[in-house]
């Protein structure tokens, strides 16, 4: 194996014989003249753009103030006919306080198999950051988001975004806020395919229904 390593590296070095020996990587100029964010927007406008772009890629968008969140979640879970919901370990307990007592709250446990997750109807999470220009929510495995697989196997994902503090305008701004070492999932609308005659079909392997709830004004209910 180490033979392969030395061989490949030696080939790379031979191939780069034309690069001056004293040239350092940063001597190769990268002109970063592109924008940090596209357009001048107020905070309110940025949140509106997020809502608009999420909806454009067929996420269902809801807006609510903090006090209304538990009731909204109750309503959305009931409307989806969910009998069970996955709950990340650090989800604020108040969020699901209003749900029907018959709704089974399933904790995110390492020991559970993918088969067990497959029997759960919904999942509720927070997020790390949301990007207005692209209509993206980013999960980074934080306590209110849980393991990557819990937002993948169930067919219905409810994601709560605290606005405006979790919303950024652009991709460059989002990367600046994220910690590279954490496992990340960037989600822009429900899963989709255009593989059959380029017809967009929503919901292939990921959750077929993505609902994003923009919550105003503190959510530590």
């Amino acid at each position, binding site marked *: 194996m180490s033979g392969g390593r030395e061989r490949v590296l030696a080939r790379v070095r*031979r191939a780069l014989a034309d690069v001056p020996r004293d040239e350092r990587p940063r001597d190769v100029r990268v002109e970063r003249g*592109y924008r940090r964010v596209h357009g001048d927007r107020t905070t309110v406008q940025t949140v509106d753009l997020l809502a608009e772009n999420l909806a454009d890629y067929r996420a269902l968008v809801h807006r609510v103030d903090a006090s209304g969140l538990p009731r909204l979640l109750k309503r959305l879970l009931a409307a989806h006919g969910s009998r069970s919901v996955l709950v990340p370990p650090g989800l604020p307990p108040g969020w699901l306080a209003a749900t029907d007592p018959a709704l089974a709250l399933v904790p995110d446990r390492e020991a559970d198999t993918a*088969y067990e997750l497959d029997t759960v109807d919904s999942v509720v999470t927070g997020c790390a950051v949301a990007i207005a220009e692209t209509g993206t929510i980013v999960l980074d495995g934080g306590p209110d988001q849980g393991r990557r697989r819990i937002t*993948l196997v169930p067919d219905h994902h409810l994601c709560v975004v605290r606005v405006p503090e979790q919303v950024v305008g652009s991709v460059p701004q989002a*990367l600046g806020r994220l910690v*590279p070492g954490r496992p990340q999932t960037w989600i822009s609308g429900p899963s989709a395919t255009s593989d059959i005659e380029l017809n967009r079909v929503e919901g292939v*392997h990921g959750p077929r229904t993505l609902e994003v709830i923009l919550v105003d004004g503190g959510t530590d209910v």
Partner: protein
Amino acid sequence: MSGTSGTYLGMPAFPVAARDAVRDETLRGNLRHATHTIREKRAKAVAELDDWERLRAAGRDVKERTLRHLDHYLVQLEEAVTAAGGTVHWAADAGEANRIVTGLVQRTGQSEVVKVKSMATQEIGLNEALEAAGVRAYETDLAELIVQLGDDRPSHILVPAIHRNRGEIRDIFVERMGSWGRAAPAGLGDDPAELAEAARVHLREKFLRAKVGISGANFMVAETGTLVVVESEGNGRMCLTLPETLISVVGIEKVVPTWQDLEVFLQTLPRSSTAERMNPYTSMWTGTTDSDGPRTFHLVLLDNGRTDTLADEVGRRALRCIRCSACLNVCPVYERAGGHAYGSVYPGPIGAILSPQLRGTGSEVDASLPYASSLCGACYDVCPVAIDIPEVLVHLRERVVQGGEVTRNGERVTIKPAKGHRGERAVMRAARWALDHPGALRAGQRLASRTRRVHPKRLPGPGRAWSDTRALPEVPEESFRDWWQRTRGGDR
């Protein structure tokens, strides 16, 4: 005919394959519909960003920086991945990569793996190598599934089953799903949503029981050791997070220096490829994470001709490619000929410059690929990392015709020039093909001012002797399309 033939320089093997493809009405109809649809959508998605040209320049710069110091970044990447709990392997060629991956799978004791679409693993023929070792590899991308079930080859980078229409896909599902796992439901129709649902059900049982996942990656960040996979369907997430062991096979050119560099490519790639502001899912992982996702992560860094390509100062820019497929969708030759005619996993304009470099121009098909173009330059215009494909094509033609020093399997060798009459024969054959199919030269031509710059007036080197006597026509100052219609289209 001789007057106009020279602008459409010859292709010994490509035209034969292309001729069959052009005769296939279904294929042509599907391709035309597909490429035109994506093309228009892409233009809209790109127009949303008023700094597109600057993003494109930055993408080019970042890739140039990486390539000029590739050894530095590979070592840095290895350190970061290792520090994060991953294991890094190096493979000089396809055989070595296949041996490494097969060995890793066998050590898990598993006899099946789930795969997310990866061009690198197609390039090395990993599925066949695994099959020979008694391991079944399941493709999970819907298009790859269609291709695999249909015992077929992919024809487009992004939409590998672009050559199949819904009726054909339905038939493939009905006939073949049963022998690969869960059969298609009774009475399956040909509505795309219904077909996607059938694929969902068919693949889910495989995802849920999978112990080993195999992927490629769109980017690897040297600074942090982070790998990035950009996808739409969620099959990538399934393969990357549910199995216990993850093996990623990635070409060495996929490294980027810093986390910040992703801000360029995560803007340009989705808009260039699927014409979306952002693709539905992007996964990023760094080594392994305690109790989240695979417990074991192996990264196989693949050379397989990439360092040979790197050794060519002009040709190396092909290694900037981020596989967005925008160049395929604007290419008039690809539109008519289809992906299969390129005889490689990399079709279209990028394939025409990448395959002959990765594999050398020893075979007839590879020697012909630099000629599978009208040099109209549309590919360069859309390329998000500004690869001047026509320039590289001309350079590679020169190499075919002129011969000279190249690097093969890490060794400097001198290739002989293609014999004059062989080259000439190739040109004539290709010209005939082009003249029979004027549509191949019709769509999307750019203004000639640019085209003229890259149209060789004469073939360089030994090719010059005969091109002088044939007087390759100068491309006039009107658009290529108008020129074509005036000179050839009028005859029909």
